[in-house]
């Protein structure tokens, strides 16, 4: 590898696998990555090389589930995934002491609320993974954390016990009712918001779920931050494949912003969900009525504090 310059903020490291575990139907891998873990913030991701199938060259992006910066496991980093394609299937067979080529930390992290204290974290499937890291950081800043964790069924519920450990109240929602409330996270969201006196919402999970959460929050004037997912080649900001249509802060128009650079965390009220997820084959010419955030944004200036 080339000599590192002084200014580089993104690290490429060969990382030893510390452990590879199952969590329901999901896999989690913990790697020794001191330089990356040291800089990692909740909402950021890493790009992992999957040399299993030489036919597939691109790295796979994974959001950071845990990063330990101090204590007994200092310098480790954990990510979660479902074995779906050739890359993740190769990763699912990895063993402790194997070595992974990892680039990170990448992307913009979740901002923390400046003044408000009551945070509701909403996660779907293994997309919930970064919320546990976020919950820790929020609690360390004296915030109240409540969680809604949803999935299709019990086996797809990501680490419900850990959610209970990290938050004041937890509601689990499964579509088949195999555990917790029957239904989707958006079905239990209104009840949780009023019960927990929620002031800000964080979301991570399938894009359709994020859209429902963000639209609920916008309608009820609750600031939300969501971590989105879009097909990505480089993760470094140069390929421009992972863009999401985002309304400008003053509502004067919109831009295709990169989920690897300006995201993956966006204000839920500023993502133009209909254009992004709804009209992929029939692009809309102008933002839909009522979606201008200059008059409808639920996020007053100064709500979020960047760290």
């Amino acid at each position, binding site marked *: 590898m*080339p000599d590192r310059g002084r200014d580089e903020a993104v690290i490429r490291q060969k990382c030893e696998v510390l452990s590879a575990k199952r969590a329901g139907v999901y896999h989690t891998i913990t790697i020794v990555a001191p330089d990356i873990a040291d800089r990692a913030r909740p909402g950021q991701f890493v790009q992992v090389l999957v040399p299993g199938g030489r036919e597939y060259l691109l790295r796979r992006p994974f959001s950071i589930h845990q990063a330990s910066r101090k204590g007994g496991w200092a310098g480790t980093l954990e990510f979660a995934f479902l074995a779906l394609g050739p890359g993740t299937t190769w990763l699912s067979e990895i063993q402790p002491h194997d070595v992974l080529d990892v680039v990170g930390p990448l992307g913009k992290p979740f901002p923390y609320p400046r003044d408000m204290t009551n945070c509701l974290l909403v996660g779907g499937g293994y997309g919930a993974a970064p919320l546990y890291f976020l919950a820790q950081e929020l609690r360390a800043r004296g915030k109240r954390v409540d969680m809604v964790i949803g999935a299709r069924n019990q086996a797809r519920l990501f680490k419900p016990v850990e959610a209970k450990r990290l938050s004041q109240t937890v509601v689990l929602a499964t579509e088949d009712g195999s555990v917790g409330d029957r239904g989707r996270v958006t079905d239990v969201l209104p009840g949780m918001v009023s019960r927990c006196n929620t002031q800000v919402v964080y979301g991570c999970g399938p894009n359709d779920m994020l859209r429902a959460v963000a639209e609920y929050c916008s309608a009820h004037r609750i600031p939300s931050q969501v971590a989105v997912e879009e097909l990505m080649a480089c993760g470094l900001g140069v390929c421009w494949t992972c863009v*999401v249509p985002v309304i400008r802060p003053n509502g004067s128009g919109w831009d295709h912003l990169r989920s690897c650079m300006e995201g993956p965390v966006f204000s839920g009220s500023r993502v133009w969900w209909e254009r992004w997820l709804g009209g992929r084959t029939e692009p809309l010419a102008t933002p839909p009525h009522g979606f201008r955030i200059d008059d409808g944004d639920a996020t007053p200036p100064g709500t979020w504090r960047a760290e």
Partner: protein
Amino acid sequence: MARRVTLAVDLDGIRLPTPVLGASGCFGSGQEMAEVLDLRQVGGIVTKSVTLAPVRGLATPRMVETASGMLNAIGLQNPGVQEFVRKDGAFIARSGVPTFVSIAGKTVEEFAEVAAHVRDVPGVVGIEANISCPNVARRNQVFACDPDAAADVVGAVVRITSVPVFAKLTADVTDIVAVARECVRAGAHGLSLINTLLGMAVDAETFRPALAAVTGGLSGPAIKPVALRCVFQVSQALPEVPIIGMGGIRSATDAVEFLLAGASAVAVGTANFFNPHATVEIAQGVGRFLADRGLSSPADLRGRLAAKAEAEDLVPRGG
């Protein structure tokens, strides 16, 4: 080693510290890559294409991985040349990296106007006229599909600036040598070979094209044999013209193959995505390759391919 190896190359007056550049659309203007790489070790950068007006680009999905490669359909998203000069131009001026600005346009006049904006940016050593992007609204905007249309663009850009102009060509033509010839006749200083190949992918689960734009540009190791063929054909026909070879390069051996086929330098594109250090590692590898064989410079490899074919035999004939 007995002989000192230099990695520097000279593209007929353009000096580069190594023969390995970051390819257009795969390296930004260097600013993002500087987060993961020491740019001083890069041979040069070809920026992402810039147009006269800002372009938002195509809807997502814009990317799909394919066998030994990937398809992209970005649609030339860029902030427009004024914003480019203000932001990227300032970065190029202080980066110290030899930079080619890639320009694109829907008309000959637009190419010339964009060139006029970028020609005075300090640090710009060349202009790459991207006349071969496959992700444009109409096929007649792919000027490199027609020798005369290609020459019109190159001629207009050359007239407006003294900065050396490289024409970026596509392999999606019957006779790339004919297009190359007309570009050089119109004043191109050099040629960049090749752009992505027009392709598509289908999602059998959803019965939909994998890309929102239906078709896209194929890149990565899958296209390397096509790119090598083009570099070889063109360099045989136009041996004096500097060629920047590109298409699927991911190792030092790949780069050496392009130099042997006739390129003076190479550009690395898709490989940056999975190996952000690719440009630097490949240059270092070329240095080791030269040292191991007692060669002193990348120029020692250029066109050294032991091939019997005459240029005439390589050019497709009609009928």
